[in-house]
């Protein structure tokens, strides 16, 4: 996908193939629970295995077909650790695009959800500095796509550029013990760029219902909404970036991260701080299970190094110190019943190689 040999003719061919991936491993110092980067994962690193590739290994194949200057299609299939414990390949995106002008287009099919600044390229490790986009924030909204339509309008306002996107669709998401169906998903996503600064604001809403895989019973439909705000400044030699999200359902949860780094030749050392807060209730008389889920909160302080050792490849090593809140096990899974790890600190070390082709 990244052209390796120069084309002698200026025309580009109709079909383009490429892909990207990450191969890596992480280690957790806590053996009483699993650390996961996504809420759909049934196992992570820690209790299930002290060393694991689950959080850090994925590969995606990508194809674009440009039928005419207005009509094109995009297809992406990926393999990563899934809710059923397998690495079975699945279609991540498949859509057809119609461009009214180069700056106004619509897509139909499975389209990516740009909930946060790196949501659409969440699996492209080579496109960001961390081992994973900050987990405490990005796991708040792990729905990656919608089946429906999106519309984009790009504009220039003097030296500034603005892209606004609207999406409407549905989604079905599997976790290890349930299937969640979302209807009437809609969202507005705006990215504003001026010089070295980028700002991102998004608001989205959906109604979802979960069906338990074990019993086949479906829960009631609930409304969910998410508001996110982000900003980054990247003059080249250094960068800072921060995002904040507020997730509302029957509870209200906030999460944020702040990160920055410095570029020295092929090395980029960086730091990261992220946290999510315990939720507060928006309805009366929550159940004990709901209180338990709402109380989950943790913070992460991390630092790492990215090394661009070769074109289209990079190596990263990251150290995360995770601190669980005083009244929860944070976002750990597979904690033995009755075990409380309140206030615990543990660390996760990850090493990955990203590639694009």
């Amino acid at each position, binding site marked *: 996908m990244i052209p390796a*040999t120069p084309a002698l003719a*200026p025309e580009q061919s109709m079909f383009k193939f490429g892909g990207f991936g990450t191969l890596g491993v992480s280690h957790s110092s806590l053996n009483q629970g699993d650390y996961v980067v996504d809420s759909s994962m049934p196992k992570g690193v820690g209790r299930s295995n002290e060393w694991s590739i689950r959080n850090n290994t994925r590969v995606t194949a990508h194809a674009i077909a440009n039928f005419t200057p207005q009509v094109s299609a995009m297809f992406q299939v990926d393999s990563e650790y899934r809710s059923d414990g397998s690495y079975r390949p699945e279609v991540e995106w498949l859509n057809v695009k119609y461009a009214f002008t180069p700056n106004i287009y619509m897509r139909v099919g499975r389209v990516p959800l740009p909930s946060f600044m790196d949501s659409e390229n969440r699996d492209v490790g080579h496109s960001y500095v961390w081992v994973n986009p900050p987990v405490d924030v990005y796991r708040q909204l792990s729905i990656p796509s919608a089946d429906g339509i999106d519309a984009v309008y790009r504009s*220039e306002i003097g030296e500034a550029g603005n892209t606004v996107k609207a999406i409407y669709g549905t989604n079905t998401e599997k976790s290890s013990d349930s299937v969640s169906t979302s209807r009437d998903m809609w969202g507005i996503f705006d990215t504003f760029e*001026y010089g*070295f600064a980028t700002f991102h604001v998004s608001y989205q809403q959906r109604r979802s219902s979960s069906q338990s895989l074990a019993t086949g019973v479906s829960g009631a439909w609930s409304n969910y909404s998410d508001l996110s705000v982000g900003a980054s400044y990247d003059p080249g030699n250094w960068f800072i970036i921060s995002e*904040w999200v507020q997730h509302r359902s029957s509870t209200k949860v906030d999460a944020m991260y702040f990160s920055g780094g410095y570029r020295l030749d092929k090395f980029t050392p960086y730091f990261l701080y992220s946290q999510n807060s315990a939720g507060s209730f928006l309805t009366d008389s929550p159940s004990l299970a709901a209180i338990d889920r709402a109380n989950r909160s943790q913070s992460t302080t991390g630092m790492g190094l990215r090394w661009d050792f070769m074109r289209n490849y990079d190596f990263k090593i990251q150290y995360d110190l995770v601190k669980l809140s005083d009244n929860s096990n944070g976002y750990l899974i597979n904690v033995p019943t009755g075990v409380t790890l309140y206030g615990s600190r543990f660390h996760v070390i990850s090493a990955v190689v990203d590639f694009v082709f």
Partner: protein
Amino acid sequence: MFFRCCLILPLLLAVTAFAANTQAPIPPTANVQPPISPPVNAQPQNAPPANAQSNVVVVVSSKSAVKSLSAEQTSKIFLGKVVTFPNGQAAVPIDLPEGNTVRDEFYAKVVHKNPSQLTAYWAKVIFTGDGRPPSLQTDSMAVRKAVAHNPNAIGYIEKSAVNRSVRIVLEP
């Protein structure tokens, strides 16, 4: 309480970014020297001298209506963020191949990205379906030829490769 802190942080970042942006951006290379133009026939075009102070210039066809461009406007065209010149005319950017020193100098001085930052940028854009990179030509002569033939084209070449078929719109 945390929520208020969390909202303030991105806003603080935004204010800092705006304040910092009002100053002129400083290019990453600290050397600022007046451009040195070697005599036109002094050296073969396809064998760069060992210590070449390769001076890159941005050119359009001499048939183009575009007279000059800012670094910011040029950067946006080569990153695919805009597809037209400021006058509304379509813009078709042409790249030199990866690894070429003139290309690296252009992207460092005008776009403020090193090669791995550029790969990371295009990885994000291509794999989210938001655009595609410029087409390629093998060297400055080939770029000059391609640009001269297309009134909508824009490319960057060594200053020593400039002739009357193209016009310099930016000298970084």
